């Protein structure tokens, strides 16, 4: 018994501060948040504890999911995620593919493609709000004006002011910021493929396409999965860019994270908590299997 304590004691002691912090601030609060989401805590008086809140179970969730307003947010989230994922994966792969073989000035290209990642969404939002200005023709500035200058007037559009597809405009700066990250992941993947493998396939007379299809793509698929998971879970948390480009009150571009902020600001804690829990569930569906899989692979 004492022996066991001596063996397990020190590591536990060293882990203790983090375990307590993560236990309380992650798991404790997730439970507390879920509890709040099951109450009728919709007013400032209840939020400050002056008036009691009563359990209403899943009413908030049902009301939210039935409301057209929230459905619009979910639809926006799906659209944003799809465009963001497809955009970053294509750009990231393309850049990595172009830089994979020795290229003059490789360092410069790589650094420039990756630099937007070091900038905050709020700062890039300032310039993208200008670029995505919805004014057209005479009044156009930003990208719409640039389209006129290069003779592509037809491409002018109202960007994030479009009710159905406005959110896609917000995905553009997100793609600008994170394609470099996906490129870095793919580049690491390419570099991890042994040269002999390619040589072997080439000597075998495999065409470039077959080389990719049968040798390189399978080797890159774990990297692609990592990239999908990371970008995917980032897109579910989309918030900063929308706050700085189109503002939280903008119906066209709202997503659940923005709704949560609006509910919180109006002291509707129950609905804010419910939106938070919905986001958590969506993320967990994607992340938990991934974490379990990674854990299992490591053990092998």
């Amino acid at each position, binding site marked *: 018994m004492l022996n066991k304590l001596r063996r397990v004691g020190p590591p536990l002691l*060293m*882990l203790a501060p*983090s375990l307590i912090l*993560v236990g309380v601030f992650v798991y404790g*609060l997730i439970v507390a948040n879920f509890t709040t989401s099951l109450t009728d805590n919709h007013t400032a008086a209840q939020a400050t504890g002056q008036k009691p809140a009563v359990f209403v179970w899943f009413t908030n969730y049902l009301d939210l999911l039935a409301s057209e307003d929230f459905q619009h947010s979910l639809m926006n989230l799906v659209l944003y995620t799809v465009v963001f994922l497809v955009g970053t994966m294509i750009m990231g792969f393309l850049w990595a593919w172009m830089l994979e073989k020795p290229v003059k000035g490789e360092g410069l290209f790589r650094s420039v493609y990756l630099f937007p990642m*070091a900038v905050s969404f709020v700062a890039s939002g300032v310039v993208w709000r200008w670029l995505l200005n919805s004014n057209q023709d005479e009044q156009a500035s930003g990208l719409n*004006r640039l389209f006129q200058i290069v003779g592509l007037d037809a491409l002018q559009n109202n960007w994030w002011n479009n009710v159905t597809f406005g959110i896609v405009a917000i995905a553009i700066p997100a793609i600008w910021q994170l394609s470099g990250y996906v490129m870095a992941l793919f580049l690491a993947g390419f570099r991890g493929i042994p040269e002999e493998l390619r040589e072997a396939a080439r*000597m075998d007379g495999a065409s470039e396409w077959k080389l990719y299809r049968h040798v390189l793509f399978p080797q890159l698929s774990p990297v692609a999965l990592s990239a999908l998971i990371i970008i995917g879970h980032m897109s579910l*948390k989309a918030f900063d860019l929308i706050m700085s480009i189109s503002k939280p009150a903008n119906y066209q571009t709202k997503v659940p994270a923005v709704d949560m902020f609006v509910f919180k600001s109006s002291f509707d804690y129950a609905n804010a908590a419910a939106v938070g829990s919905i986001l958590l569930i969506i993320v967990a569906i994607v992340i938990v299997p991934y974490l379990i899989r990674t854990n299992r692979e*490591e053990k092998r």
Partner: protein
Amino acid sequence: MTAEAEQLTAHRPAPAAPRVHKGRYSLARTLKYVGLIFFLIVVLIPVYVLLVTSFKGTGDADPSRAWNLPQIWTTENWATAWTTLAPAIGRTLAIVVPSSIISAFLGSLNGFVLSRWSFKGADIVFTLILFGMFIPYQAVMIPLTQLVLDLGIPTGVPTLILLHVVYGIPITTLIFRNYYSTVPHELIEAGRVDGAGMLRTYWSIVLPISIPSFVVVLIWQFTSAWNDFLFAVFFSSSQNGPVTVALNNLANGALLQNYGVSMAGALFASLPTLIVYIILGKYFVGGLMSGSVKG
């Protein structure tokens, strides 16, 4: 796959060098450079806009001049942005520096324990910690405001230090754990034979060889805390908050958008992380890679 490819190619004479394709290759090369330069320009467009607009005076406000260089270059916007944002930049430093150091240190302790002293359930503990990195913080925000209130921690700098430390633990633990798994076992075993306790081993053997990982972790934490907006907007105001909140306020506060000032402000707010990226790019990428769980 690998074995198959090797088998297929065994005992085959090497084919002659594919000289026939040389012309095609150089065309492909040219096309590649055209592509690379095209994307270079596209990625840099926002930088051009930021720089040019920040030096423009009110005389350049007409939309027809949107993409032109300033008629008269002025540093007025820079001066205004600096006086508005300087206090917030100071507060951001006060948040980011201590929180990065503390969370890096905690991550190093965790990473060491979880990679070396494997006890039953160490993997489960690690996975549970790691999950904290992926949660949408919206799912804890409401009770978190209550908890911070109950703990009596003032909003602004103190609260944000605490939050960046706590929610930084998963990623710092991950990076250090991956790093320590690559440290040769003998190095630590040697310390153990000497009868050094776990804490002694950590202090005198592990910590000194952890410098490269500390650099990666500190850069990562510095960048993400500096760029944080979500926690900042919930737990501070433009009076006591970091530069992201102040910048957002500057860019959207006034009825009339003053793009010159807000773009100068955006550049100020991005300079520290950009400088870190330019000087320590290698370590920055190291942090990015660890973000992909498997490192």
